[in-house]
């Protein structure tokens, strides 16, 4: 994951200039400084929320995310120069209040792809049909995961966060990130094998 907050300059004293942590600390006495945090990260947080809950809810929750972040800024750990994982964590907590919306969205995804595949196209290659056919059951499988496991899985697979960043975002140890991800992947693989028993999955070190 790359963000502008990581592309900061250092002054002659080695102090980070314009890093998120610095801006957040400055915003304790000068609240408007927090505006730069919004401008840097809001598009990404909004997209994350839209991916998980749809555009309409995302538009509302992106404001809630940054309002919550602003109100909690005094407790921000200034050792983290990049605030985006922290913001992902706050957004993920808010998604937790919309679990039903998310599961409904994933089920709709399944219905949509069932309709898509049943329509069929003669020129579609077999592999594409197979991948397409997997999307619906896979969406259902993800919807059926325990919420903490789904959060870890999607932060890594969809948002490309590292394990350390997920740990920061969700305020959990890195070991817990690994175990949640492994559990989520086992369940997803089981669904995929049901669809195609010939599938094999290379073991990826997590």
């Amino acid at each position, binding site marked *: 994951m790359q963000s502008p907050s990581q592309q900061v300059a250092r002054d002659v004293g080695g102090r980070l200039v314009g890093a998120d942590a610095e801006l957040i600390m400055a915003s304790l006495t000068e609240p408007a*400084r*927090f505006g*730069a945090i*919004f401008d840097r990260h*809001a598009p990404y947080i909004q997209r994350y929320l839209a991916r998980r809950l749809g555009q309409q809810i995302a538009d509302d929750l992106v*404001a809630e995310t940054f309002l919550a972040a*602003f109100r909690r800024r005094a407790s921000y750990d200034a050792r983290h120069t990049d605030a985006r994982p922290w913001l992902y964590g706050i957004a993920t907590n808010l998604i937790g209040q919309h679990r039903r919306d998310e599961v409904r969205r994933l089920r709709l995804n399944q219905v949509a792809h069932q309709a898509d595949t049943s329509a069929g196209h003669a020129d579609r290659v077999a592999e594409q049909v197979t991948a397409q056919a997997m999307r619906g059951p896979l969406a259902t499988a993800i919807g059926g995961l325990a919420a903490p496991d789904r959060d870890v899985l999607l932060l890594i697979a969809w948002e490309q966060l590292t394990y350390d960043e997920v740990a920061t975002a969700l305020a959990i140890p890195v070991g817990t990130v690994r175990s949640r991800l492994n559990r989520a*992947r086992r369940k997803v693989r089981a669904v995929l094998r049901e669809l195609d028993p010939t599938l094999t999955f290379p073991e990826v070190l997590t």
Partner: protein
Amino acid sequence: MDDMQVITELRPDEPLVGDHDLNAARTRLFAEFDAARRPGKRRFVLAAGVAVVAAAAAAAFVVIPTPGPAKPGPGPKVVLDAAYVLHRAAQDALSEPAVTPRPDQFVYVKLGNPRFPQQGWLSVDGAHDGLIRDHAGDTPVPGCRNGRQQVVIGDRPSGRTQPCQPQPAYDPNLPTDPNGLISYLEKGRTVDLTTPEGVNAVAKDIDGLFYTTYVPPSVQSALFTAIARIPGLSVDRATPAGTIGIRWSFSGTGEMLFSTVNGYHYVGDRTVSQHGDVGSDMLLAPVAIVDRAGELP
């Protein structure tokens, strides 16, 4: 097959949204900034009569008064709100490079109508001879040295002198935080920003600061943050191309103008009648520091 890749491909195709789509969220957040900063009283008082406004230059760079009772403006309904524009301006100002002028240098300003611009070279310490140039020619701005300055008759120094107070075009002691700036301004006469007269006076002081002095980025930022607290400001987008106007609600038709190109940057003021623009004082170039009167940046 890589299961993680399959899951990644399931990701809904959502675009990164632009500034416009985030306006509603931004407005809510910036309103929270105000609430966090507001010390608990709804009204606050500023002072007029800013000492740093150079008297000689002020005569040349007069701001059109905006009398009259408060009334709703004719501008279109817009999504952006005034607090947002001012907060962005406060933020964007901080991205500008700050310079510390030497006492023997000059603050260069260029403003007015693009067809008939006025240029000013104003002494940083007020002790050096400055210059105002427009379509009619050059007018000297004599420096004040040892309490005396040349008397200008017409556009020529007369050879006689008169008592004076230096009018520096740069004050290194301007506060860089909104509260400090308000305190600084309160050293003059007190005005009430909930009255048309109060807003009008402060608007002229602010324009004077920008037109006749070098205002460092940190001071600009504090100034815009302070202005954002004034109740009743509104946005007018029916402004010259590339600008947005912040309307002083109590002055009826006076506006601060901000460039909307590459962020929000203060570029002047204007007065609007029911029939349109009746006067603009636009900064036609960024305020700059030069070594000699007459030298272009």
